């Protein structure tokens, strides 16, 4: 108890220094000093307040929605929850932030697309101080348990603008039955994926060797996942510079082209994850490259014809490296919110150990926590195969962010996505990448200079 009080005092001193630097922090300081008298952490501190939460439709959001009453009972804070699809959420969030008074106090953000944009515009509140405040952050939240990758993702220019919530690795789903029928082994390298896809491809029987996103924008992670096999990112240095027309980038694109053009289903150039999922779940594709979140529908008998036949494989190694593409979501407090502390409580709850365990248990996502993946009861109660959890754990060890951390991520994905889609149509990989690089370079220069 004494130790905790000591920490608070020193933090308060720190805060005062901070407040002297910027007038913006002053109102927060006042609110906090008021509460400082009340002592230890107390979930009920902001009882009676109400907050608005805006999330993206996903199993992550479902998890919070399902257990929302627990949070309300625990804290006495009323939650107004809005869940909308990703594309709309992104556009709505930006329009609302831009107006200066967003209607929500808590917002979900995707690190791989919005990190730089949100950080640049300072749309989300800085959480560093609250994280260090034992009166606002309970010991059981256990910062040490949060993975370094997650904390890195949440930090921009030394500023923690969100709490890391859920990570998405890329992997290879494979249909065990189709593999057995053609006597093919699980590929260990990217070259073997190409060979296996060719062997398994059987248009006569209506089976595609492999399926993955071909649709512009959505398809870029497929390529960057392959590119990680050459140990390469899409940009380098500060300010970031494009390295998207290197020999390795072209080689990865050639693999992408070969896979989808020669062994992919008809029309794959327009496929997003949903078309891919429908096809794979009907047993009409032998392999599927995508994020880890799809186990629940694949193991659901009302949706899938391949229940129990799905293999969950760590993405195979490339010629130069073995990595799994990583994407992530965070949950943040909006900078313009009048209720930052209760909003922060919601974020704490959403990323708490209990909620993280539940998330993994349903196969709905992978938390940025060490303890979750080794939590016995959680693993024992998995509603998806154990293979999946193993695959996730293994992927986590070799994970690396697979999209550039820049403001115009969507433009990047559209430009290179178009090039990749063109390749499926037969265009030359090197020429397309050179064109896309030349097209995007000025955009990047303007944005990140």
């Amino acid at each position, binding site marked *: 108890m004494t130790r905790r009080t000591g920490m608070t005092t020193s933090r308060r001193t720190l805060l005062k220094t901070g407040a002297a630097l910027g007038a913006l922090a002053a109102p927060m300081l006042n609110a906090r000093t008021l509460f400082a008298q009340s002592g230890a952490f107390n979930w009920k501190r902001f009882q009676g307040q109400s907050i608005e939460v805006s999330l993206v439709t996903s199993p992550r959001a479902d998890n919070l929605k399902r257990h929302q009453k627990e949070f309300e009972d625990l804290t006495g804070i009323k939650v107004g929850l809005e869940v909308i699809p990703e594309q709309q959420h992104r556009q709505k969030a*930006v329009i609302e932030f831009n107006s200066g008074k967003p209607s929500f106090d808590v917002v979900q953000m995707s690190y791989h697309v919005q990190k730089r944009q*949100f950080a640049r*515009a300072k749309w989300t509140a800085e959480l560093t101080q609250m994280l260090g405040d034992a009166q606002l952050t309970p010991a059981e939240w256990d910062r040490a348990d949060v993975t370094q990758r997650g904390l890195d993702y949440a930090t921009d220019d030394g500023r923690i603008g969100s709490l890391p919530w859920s990570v998405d690795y890329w992997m290879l789903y494979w249909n065990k039955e189709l593999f057995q029928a053609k006597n093919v082994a699980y590929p260990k390298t990217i070259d073997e994926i190409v060979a296996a896809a060719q062997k398994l491809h059987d248009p006569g029987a209506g089976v595609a060797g492999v399926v993955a996103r071909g649709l*512009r924008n959505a398809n870029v992670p497929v390529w960057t996942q392959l590119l990680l096999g050459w140990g390469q990112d899409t940009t380098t240095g500060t300010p970031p510079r494009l390295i998207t027309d290197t020999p390795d980038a072209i080689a990865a694109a050639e693999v992408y082209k070969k896979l989808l053009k020669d062994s992919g289903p008809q029309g794959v150039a327009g496929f997003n994850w949903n078309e891919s999922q429908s096809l794979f779940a009907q047993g*009409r594709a032998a392999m599927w490259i995508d994020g880890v979140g799809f186990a629940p529908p694949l193991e659901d008998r009302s949706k899938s014809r391949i229940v129990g036949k799905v293999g969950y494989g760590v993405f195979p190694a490339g010629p130069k490296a073995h990595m799994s593409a990583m994407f992530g979501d965070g949950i943040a407090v909006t900078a313009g919110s009048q209720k930052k502390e209760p909003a922060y409580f919601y974020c704490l709850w959403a990323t708490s150990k209990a909620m993280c365990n539940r998330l993994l248990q349903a196969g709905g996502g992978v938390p940025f926590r060490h303890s979750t993946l080794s939590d016995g009861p959680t693993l024992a109660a998995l509603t998806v195969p154990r293979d999946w959890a193993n695959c996730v754990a293994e992927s986590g060890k070799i994970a690396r962010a697979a999209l550039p951390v820049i403001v115009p991520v969507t433009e990047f994905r559209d430009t290179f996505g*178009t090039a990749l889609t063109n390749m499926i*149509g037969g265009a030359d990989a090197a020429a397309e990448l050179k064109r896309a690089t030349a097209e995007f370079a000025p955009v990047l220069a303007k944005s990140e200079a």
Partner: protein
Amino acid sequence: MAAQTDGIVNAEPAKRPPSYRPPRYLSFIVPGLIATLAVIVFPWLFTVWMSFHEWKIGGSRHWVGVQNYVTLAGNQRFLEAIIHTFYFTALAVILPLVLGTFAAVVFHRNFPLRGVLRTVFIMPMMATPVAIALVWTMMFHPQLGVLNYLLSLVGLPPSEWVFAKHTVIPSLVLVEIWHWTPFVMIIVLGGLAALPSEPYESALIDGATPWQMFRHITFPLVLPFLVVAGIIRTIDALKAFETIYVISNGGPGTASETINIYLYLQAFAYYNVGDASAVVVVFFGIIVALSLVLLYVRQRAKWT
């Protein structure tokens, strides 16, 4: 009969000078006008003003003069979007016009259950575009969609529909045709209802084929109605958004990226408000220009 037709089609009385404007009717128009302007003036000023700025939402904003327009004029993707728009619009106007006229001729005839069947036929134009687009998306799936199954039933090879570059725009037009043919049908039906019946009777006795009757009697008389339908369809097809946004979102690649989709991406995916505003101004210019051309055609069609 003929006089009444003239009265409907050419309501303009010839005697009054064209400048005649009794001021007493202004009070009827002013409230509606003010309301319209109240909603559109601020967005318009904002858009035009922004089109001279470089501004990415979340970043700083600065004046760049006509730079956005210059960039746009040399932007390959935008120029292609214009071509896609015209291609899409041409198909999405002409085909519903043809089919709608045909449908109107059919539903103008008397047959059992005509009322009920006509109601069924106009249902698509009342359907919620977003919802219908989602249903079509599922029908278009190249492996699991019902459309390819129907093709296979009649011995045709499967199509890739919206999943391939060369078929995406015609496939999207298919949805537009489904949606908007009834609209053309209704307008033309109104034209047919006002037609005199004598020329048909005498032509029938003379042994004219249905096509001859259509070509020489019906078509000239409904032409003004067709032009009106054409103008409205053109404005709507140029601005088509929901269908494309939901079904293909401009893809594959940029194969179905129309001006409106490009505008959407610039504004709400890339957040380049300056560039997007310039697109709006150019786009609006195109819509107005085309509408004026069609209005001119309409005047011509009226008097000949």
